């Protein structure tokens, strides 16, 4: 109904690509519904990302950049595109792959295999940081200790820090994550639905955590998930192609990158809604992001003061950071410590709300704990 009508360019004949007007159109571009040829698709896909990087000055020459690599489609395509653009446009970046191993038996193995293949394929050095090394606990051990009810608190807090700690081990200047336009649109909606005005004001920023230890950026901010899914069909990502398209059509890819411990009916509604919107109006995804950018939020919504954790030095508005509180609980055999209304170690401090907000500041912007494409 709302789809743009594409007119045949030749009477009766095959449609020509509406960008180059030479080759036969091979696909309907998900973002614009233009009929274009394969070559033009890769061209516009990559150059749009390049333009986003340039316009927003995401990188400076000589910087060391870690790509948060989960083995999922977003981060794999990000690694592929960034190394290509770095070469083509002489960004002068040192790129690294950074992965987190939570220690969940039988679940991470596949994705870590993918990351290792990426390492070889793009010639990017890979660093894998494990929960076991960083915290002394694997996720399996944590779940054994506390049961399934509150484990996602651990997933989220630990992964956020793990990525930062891994990044500082690599001495990188910035972490690039594979959040795509669909993710950001979803986050905007979820923050409206939850009434989280503080996060709503930040969640569309392309660079976050500039006040934190290591800033994060999202080069795929305007890139449609559907296009990320088609992209690996090019020769450039040949190794991963089959796995991806296969996984996609088998509907394994998205679901398999969710934390197996996380039930999430709620988030499902928003994801489904965005897919429905995209079906009748592809531009809705960009429009939601645009709304998110233009929301008038008064600056009096203040962030809590940032200090550092007395125990590990990680950024924290409290005496101890969230991870250290949770760890202390685990180590003392009191796993409920730090979950929910934070009583206990930081009891002298005001409210849990502050903890949430401070962690949210450099958070992965509500990308679900279980989603490994951080």
């Amino acid at each position, binding site marked *: *109904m*709302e789809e743009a009508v594409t007119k045949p360019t030749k009477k009766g004949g095959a449609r020509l690509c509406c960008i180059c007007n030479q080759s036969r159109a091979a696909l309907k571009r998900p*973002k*614009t519904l233009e009929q274009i040829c394969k070559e033009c698709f890769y061209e516009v896909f990559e150059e*749009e990302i390049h*333009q986003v990087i340039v*316009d*927003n000055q995401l990188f400076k020459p000589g910087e060391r950049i870690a790509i948060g690599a989960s083995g999922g489609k977003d981060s794999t395509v990000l690694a592929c595109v960034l190394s290509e653009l770095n070469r083509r446009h002489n960004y002068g970046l040192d790129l690294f792959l950074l992965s987190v191993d939570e220690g969940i038996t039988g679940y991470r193995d596949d994705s870590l295999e993918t990351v290792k293949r990426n390492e070889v394929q793009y010639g990017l050095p890979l660093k894998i940081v494990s929960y076991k090394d960083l915290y002394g606990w694997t996720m399996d051990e944590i779940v054994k200790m506390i049961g399934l*009810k509150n484990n*996602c*608190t*651990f*997933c*989220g*807090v630990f992964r956020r820090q793990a990525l930062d700690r891994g990044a500082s081990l690599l001495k990188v200047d910035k972490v690039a994550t594979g959040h795509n336009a669909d993710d950001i649109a979803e986050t*905007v909606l*979820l923050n*409206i*639905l*939850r*009434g*989280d*005005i503080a996060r709503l004001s930040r969640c569309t920023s*392309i660079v976050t955590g500039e006040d934190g230890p290591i800033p994060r950026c999202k080069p795929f901010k*305007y890139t449609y998930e559907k296009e990320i899914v088609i992209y690996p069909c090019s020769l450039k990502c040949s190794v991963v192609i089959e796995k991806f398209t296969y996984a996609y059509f088998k509907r394994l890819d998205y679901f398999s990158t969710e*934390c197996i411990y*996380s*039930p*999430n*009916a*709620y*988030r499902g*509604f928003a994801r489904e*809604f965005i897919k429905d*919107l995209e079906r*009748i109006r592809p*531009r*809705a995804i*960009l*429009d*939601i992001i*645009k*709304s*998110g*950018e*233009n*929301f*008038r*939020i*008064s600056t009096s919504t203040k962030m809590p003061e940032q200090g550092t954790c007395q125990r590990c030095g990680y950024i924290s508005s409290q005496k101890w950071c*969230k991870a250290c509180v949770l760890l202390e609980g685990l180590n003392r055999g009191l796993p409920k410590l730090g979950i929910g209304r934070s009583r206990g170690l930081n009891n002298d401090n005001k409210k849990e*709300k502050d*903890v*949430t907000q401070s962690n*949210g500041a450099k958070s*992965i912007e*509500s*990308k*679900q*704990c279980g989603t490994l494409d951080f």
Partner: protein
Amino acid sequence: MACDSSTCQSNCYKRQLVEEEPIASKSGDSNKQSVCVKCKAKEAVSGAGEDGRFCRECFRSNLYGKFKLAVTSNAMITPSDNVLVAFSGGPSSRVVLQFIHEMQQRAQKNFDASKDRSLPVFGVGVTYIDESAYHSVPSCEIDEAIEDIRSIVSNLAPPAKELHIVPIEGVFALDSLDCERERLKTLLDSVSDATGKEDLLLHLRMLTLQKRRSAAFDGVVQDVFTHKYLRLQVASENGYNRLVLGLCTSRIACHVITATVKGQGYSLPADIQYVDARWEVPVVLPLRDCLASELNMFCHLDGLKTLEFSNGPCSGINGLVSSFVKLLQEENPSRECTIVRTAGKLTPFHFNRIPELNDSNVPLATRRRQKRFNLKPNESISSESFCPLCFSPLSKSDLSSLSSFESCQDYDILGAACSSCRFQIFPKDPSSMEHFYSVLPQPLLIRAKKCSNGNRSLLRQFQKDGSNLQPTSNIDNQVLAAANCLPKE
């Protein structure tokens, strides 16, 4: 409480789900036979009130209390006002009509009892916009509905309320009803997007509810249309200075999401406040804090007659959003409140308040009360540029795209439209712009011309000030790339 649901630190929502479950079940069957939580005497009526634990009387007074608080704390209605209630026949507008009537009755009682009779009683009129031209409802059904409306309104007396029944196509102010119907059809047919069509109709409805007399109109086209537009002046020609809409929390929640989805995040706060005085006749929303389910319940309990039209459900984006919000509301009965509360934290505009009353006819107490409750000017955004089509305030980046439009054709005044109107209402083919312009109703064009002049002078001022009009991000390019619907010249 769930309405204030805090977020899980890990962003995974799991905790939130766990918290919300018990609340969801509370409103279900477990509390059926309980006693009213307010008076602790009578039996609670299931479904009454947000948590379904009020008795009939407490539910009623609670709902009226929300209405009354919204009216008084925003100075919506003062004794010297003459308010027009937009009545659609649905439960929301039925309840708002009922409450306004009760308020007026009380004022009348006070007036009759007082010795000096210094405080006048505010006047009430009712208007019904007949949209049968668009919805193609059988004429017998319409006649029946109008008969019902007449009896509803006449039963709400004393004080008597004038009823204005206005066909939506009257907005075109042509020679005959048939011409107007034809024109409405042509205009709506020229909009290919289903959502755009619905939204355009909404804009026409607001235009119809508002006054259409303006200086330009008077001077240039008055003699042609004189006999017509007299019939059309719904609000201000009849001396109304407030337009009361029955928009409730649930409808506003849907609007928050639809506006977000259409890229109207900037202008969104303008539409969802208690008061919206950007129109010639300020619009007020006294049911902003009432849920649709409560209003339905109220009509049911009070035996208020409502009218159902076979309009068919909304299609496109609007329909998708309302089923999404419905789903969320079923999952958590406080979701609609949360959505409206979030959007309520966005900064409103300077016109989201009743203009200061300096009229010496207005009692001092009223003025004082108004001062106390109104927004402080520094809390709101001062914006003077509006989309000529939907009249939503334009962001700086919207305005900056205006500079690329050369003003050489009549229809170029539409060039300053917001990106949403350009995408979903404007014809996709630039060569159809002239035709589209030619079938728009005069009052809209007059307003558009004003908007356009205002926008251009604002733009010139910005350029002179050297302020940055460039889009702050490249989202606009992204959106433009996706839209390809702009007349490129």
